[in-house]
């Protein structure tokens, strides 16, 4: 499929023959909505409340589709996932006080994963700010550390411009969340001033064109490498650099590993792709990263779950680091050859500068040997209990190649990432940096609304993750969203249980339930369809039925509660010393 780039190329899901009409600006609130329309926003996620009511009133006459979520946290996650799949920032709204603080988790999540999100929050009237008024929270204070920038609107005349600027800033350069806090008097205040075209602030425009000297130095380093390795991060996906990145890898025959957010930047069934590296990455990716002599990292911040202990990370490698954010250069891992700029542009420039491909035939052979030596596999007896990895493979098999997969956080997330074969970017939608349990279902809602109608959306969830945002099933039912939730239910907060068994002498404190709800019945109570599956033979039938159902469906897979996620690099350990089972930790 082609990459998703500009929002303008996406047909509006709700578009009809009738020409869309722009909101007439009569107030601060209508100026806000007009600014969103000017930015081609088609969908917004939110929850009503006192201080944001003027904004909702302005939405009443707008063509923007508003999806009322059950909880504001879900609104920020849905907006985040919408943005990941769509390519343009997702938009979420909430009222002041608890509405705004409930958004915080999703904003922090977007910040950690560099996802473009615009949050609009209501605020008490300006003259009451600072008085501890009803539902007052210092929202710009609370969200300053987790946004690229946030704004406190001060005038109906300029609030439209501010919203346009915040939307543009969210997408500019390294994407991330922005927020505009809207005091009620600003929203209600009269104005007829139409917002101008939204531009990101002059002080935040990144360098996109890499410097010649940096490009030359990087090219020379790659040319002379004997064991070069490409590391594609989320920046390749978000920078729409997938085509350039793949072209570079195949032209020069350089093996590729990805980070988790970088999944899909390279087709995982390509002979050069070693899948993703890090704590639960493949053995072969971690072997390659350990032995490379030239690591060419694109759009990654070298998260500790990727690097393991810094002292043993790619210990023999010269590091070429391409990133649009100069602050990521040498933050965690020293960049011998930094290239600051747009990912696609930088890859093309380095490619054009190279006069020869590195001679890496032996190294490629070695990487293939590691693929054979450390295959991703799991023990699967013929009888119950059902293995969670089997369920993931069965789902992958039963769904089209370009299915969008969202997940919560924990063991199920790792199995989904390990055993689903991703071939395209923006198909794996998960919470990486913040590790937010409960992300999966609201993300599936956001992804569904951003996806084309003929695309399939599956949420692979865990029982504990699902319970954290289960109320959003009501939204999926009301909006008639065709999503399938597959719960890998082991009746544990499984990753915690795994760590307790490995590092806390099996003392399972607060990791399990005495009683787990029947999720298939709960789904039916919400108005969705539900199935419970205990055995291998029931798996294909349930998956087929759930996928065939045109609406929200939930399959509760009762999987082996003793199954653990491996390979595993212990926290702070060496990637090359990944354990294949608990006794190797």
């Amino acid at each position, binding site marked *: 499929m082609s990459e998703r780039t500009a929002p303008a190329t996406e047909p509006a899901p709700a578009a009809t023959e009738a020409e869309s009409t722009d909101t007439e600006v009569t107030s601060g609130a209508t100026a806000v909505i007009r600014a969103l329309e000017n930015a081609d926003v088609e969908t917004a996620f939110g929850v009503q409340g006192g201080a944001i009511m003027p904004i909702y009133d302005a939405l009443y006459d707008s063509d923007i589709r508003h999806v009322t979520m059950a909880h504001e946290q879900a609104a920020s996650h849905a907006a985040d996932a919408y943005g990941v799949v769509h390519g343009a920032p997702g938009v979420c709204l909430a009222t002041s006080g608890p509405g705004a603080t409930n958004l915080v988790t999703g904003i922090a999540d977007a910040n950690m994963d560099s996802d473009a999100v615009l949050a609009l929050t209501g605020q008490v009237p300006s003259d009451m700010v600072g008085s501890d008024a009803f539902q007052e929270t210092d929202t710009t204070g609370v969200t300053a550390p987790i946004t690229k920038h946030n704004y406190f609107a001060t005038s109906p005349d300029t609030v439209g411009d501010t919203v346009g600027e915040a939307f543009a800033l969210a997408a500019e350069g390294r994407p991330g969340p922005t927020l505009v806090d809207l005091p009620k008097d600003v929203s209600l205040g009269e104005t007829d001033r139409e917002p101008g075209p939204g531009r990101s602030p*002059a002080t935040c425009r990144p360098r996109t064109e890499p410097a010649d000297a940096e490009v030359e130095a990087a090219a020379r380093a790659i040319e002379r490498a004997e064991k070069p390795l490409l590391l594609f991060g989320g920046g390749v996906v978000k920078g729409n650099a997938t085509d350039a990145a793949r072209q570079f890898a195949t032209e020069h025959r350089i093996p590729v590993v990805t980070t988790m957010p970088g999944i899909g930047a390279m087709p995982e069934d390509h002979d050069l792709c070693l899948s993703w590296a890090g704590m639960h990455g493949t*053995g072969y990716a971690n072997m390659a990263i*350990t032995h490379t002599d030239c690591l060419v990292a694109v759009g990654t911040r070298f998260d500790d779950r990727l690097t393991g202990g810094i002292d043993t990370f790619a210990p023999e490698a010269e590091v070429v680091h391409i990133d649009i954010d*100069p602050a990521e250069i*040498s933050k965690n891992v*020293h960049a011998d050859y930094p290239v600051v700029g747009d990912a696609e542009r930088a890859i093309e420039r380095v490619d054009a500068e190279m006069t020869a491909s590195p001679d890496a035939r032996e190294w490629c052979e070695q990487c293939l040997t590691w693929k054979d030596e450390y295959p991703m596999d*799991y023990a699967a007896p013929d009888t119950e209990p059902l293995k969670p990895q089997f369920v993931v493979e069965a789902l992958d098999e039963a769904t089209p190649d370009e299915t969008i997969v969202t997940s919560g956080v924990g063991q199920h997330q790792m199995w989904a990432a390990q055993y689903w074969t991703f071939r395209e970017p923006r198909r794996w939608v998960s919470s990486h940096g913040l590790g937010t349990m409960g992300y999966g279902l609201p993300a599936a809602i956001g992804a569904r609304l951003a996806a084309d109608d003929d695309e399939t959306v599956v949420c692979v969830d865990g029982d504990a993750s699902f319970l954290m945002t289960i109320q959003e099933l009501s939204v999926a039912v009301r909006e008639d969203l065709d999503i399938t939730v597959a719960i890998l239910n082991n009746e544990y907060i499984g990753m915690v249980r795994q760590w307790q068994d490995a590092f806390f002498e099996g003392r399972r404190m607060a990791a399990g339930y005495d009683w787990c709800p029947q999720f298939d019945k709960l789904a039916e109570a919400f108005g969705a369809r539900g199935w419970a599956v205990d055995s291998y033979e029931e798996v294909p039938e349930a998956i087929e039925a759930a996928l065939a159902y045109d609406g929200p469906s939930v399959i509760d897979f009762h999987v082996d509660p003793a199954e653990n996620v491996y390979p595993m690099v212990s926290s702070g350990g060496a990637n090359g010393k990944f*354990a*294949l089972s608990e006794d190797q930790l």
Partner: protein
Amino acid sequence: MSDGQTGLQGPAPEDRPHPDGRRNAQGIRVDPAVESEREPRRTVLSAIVEHEPGVLSRVAGLAARRQFNIESLTVGPTTVDGHARITMVVEEPDPGIDQIETQLAKLKPVISIGELDDDAVRAELVLLKVRGEDPDKVHAITEMYDGKTLDAGPETITVQLTGDEHKIDDAVDAFRRFGIIEIARTGQTALAHGGKKTVPGEEPGTSGEPTKPTTNTTSK
């Protein structure tokens, strides 16, 4: 999926080849034989920022949450309308100083930021309140450090001293003999030597439009 009970296969961790190389705490690849950790150094950063509400808290908050070691921070308006200068004394190893600059440069109100050279002109102001029992001796020390007496009475004498950090430190030591009751220091502020610009791309005069240099990597 494999039949039976096998699961993941492959050589155990201790049976795999592992390279000898390593990186130091700053992620810099080091010779296995040489221990190499960069030493912290003290330097002055100067930033031109948009003079708007909350700018100081954004700068200070960023420094706090990223554990940047900031010794002092001063802020005040410049000759350009709507601009202010923030001067920071920081103490970090080299990669840390780069981090402070690049992270601060990302803040929307930060227009430009740079590190001052060693020959920069630096000064700070201190107010010292000492016991007033020995006014002549207090006066003599104050004179010695080119200070000024701001307030004198039978109980206390308050003097003002200005100068670079070393001079102020020496002066404070000299006043200790009188018994320092209270002290207030502004922290250092600084400008580049001679015709050099304090902050890269800094515009003199009263142009209102913030500009960012495009050639300097530390200021985006």
